[in-house]
């Protein structure tokens, strides 16, 4: 059984999905939360000067989505065959597309522009992505995004909406299947506890 260590800052950000994969799979790992002041010294020892980094028996892996996909495959949370794996992948990438839009608001310093971006987010961008995910759930029978059981796709979508929902808790109210999927994940063993008790972070 390999030993896993995930190093990332003490927030959700780009480390949280991998943490959710471990929890969903009920697998142990060292959740190495790096404090900001310790990062500069640690940086040189990482493959690409960035986090998250996954250490598997001493071998290191970078790139948040690569790490999540790798773990999902290891723990059978990546679909039952190559095409289902690709379908999981596809949803992860769609979440990335949504995140890129969301990040524009986060990084915009100009207040006027920020207001415009946020308006566009709530009126155009989020409805678009909520609609795509809801449709995808319906097309797959309603319960999970890929196959008949929880996969990386469901965790990715759950994780992708965490920060938006924190800022606007009602945003998913007209998307019943997506809402139900969130509740379903929150009711699962180990990951349910983790989600209930994890500390709140802005991102």
């Amino acid at each position, binding site marked *: 059984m390999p030993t896993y260590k995930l190093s990332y800052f003490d927030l959700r950000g780009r480390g949280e999905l991998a943490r959710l994969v471990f929890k969903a799979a009920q697998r142990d790992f060292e959740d190495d939360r790096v404090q900001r002041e310790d990062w500069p010294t640690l940086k040189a020892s990482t493959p690409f000067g960035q986090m998250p980094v996954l250490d598997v028996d001493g071998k290191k892996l970078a790139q948040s989505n690569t790490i999540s996909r790798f773990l999902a495959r290891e723990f059978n949370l990546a679909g039952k065959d190559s095409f289902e794996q690709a379908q999981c992948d596809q949803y992860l990438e*769609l979440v990335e597309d949504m995140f890129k839009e969301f990040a524009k608001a986060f990084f915009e310093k100009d207040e006027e522009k920020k207001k415009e971006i946020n308006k566009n987010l709530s009126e155009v961008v989020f409805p678009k992505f909520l609609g795509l995910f809801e449709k995808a759930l319906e097309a797959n029978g309603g319960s999970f995004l890929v196959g008949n059981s929880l996969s990386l796709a469901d965790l990715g979508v759950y994780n992708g909406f965490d920060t938006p929902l924190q800022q606007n808790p009602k945003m998913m109210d007209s998307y019943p299947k997506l809402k139900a999927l969130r509740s379903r994940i929150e009711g699962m063993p180990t990951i349910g506890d983790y989600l209930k008790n994890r500390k709140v972070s802005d991102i």
Partner: protein
Amino acid sequence: MSVYKLIYFDLRGRGEIPRLLFQAAGVKYEDKRLKLDISTGTCTEWKTLKSRMPQNALPVLEVDGKQLSQSLTIARYLAKEFGLIGTTNWQQAQVEQIADTMDDLRAEVAKWIYETEDQKKKDEIALHLRTEIYPKFIRILETILEENKENGNASGYFVGGDLTLADLSVYETFTFPLGIHPDILNNHPDLQEHRERIEGHTLLADYIKNRPERPV
């Protein structure tokens, strides 16, 4: 053998890595290219097709009629099908790590491409690419090649001693930057050799030499 169709604009863009994968694997596919009106930058065919695509976006890969979206997903799926993604889960992750990193580079270069209004800003972005971005990613790639040599892999390929999606990602991601900044690999012989290795590869040479010239 599955029947493949790749739908994308008549550009390299986000369709080219999947095309290179088909070439490298020697697998036939329908290369559906939607033509753009260069003068207006619009695509009439796309207007009618868009609503029929699962994410209203391209590229889309059709596999025996089933549709898959997202360029990186398509690339990973094809690489997996064609044995061009390493032979173990760990190797696959190493290949993906490089492909994902190259997508980060692509995103940085895209900022220059998409800045069409403010020339001063565009020049600033170009300077940032030259002084910060290219060096950072070149260093990452050279480090991997050096570590490979230390670990007994002197093949010049990024993972596992033979061509994978990682090599095609690196090759194609540098195609556009080299067009606007032709000298960036001048002091990086390992990476220049890598490009030559891809351009000389039996299954890729003809395709790369003869593929249509496109702005991106």
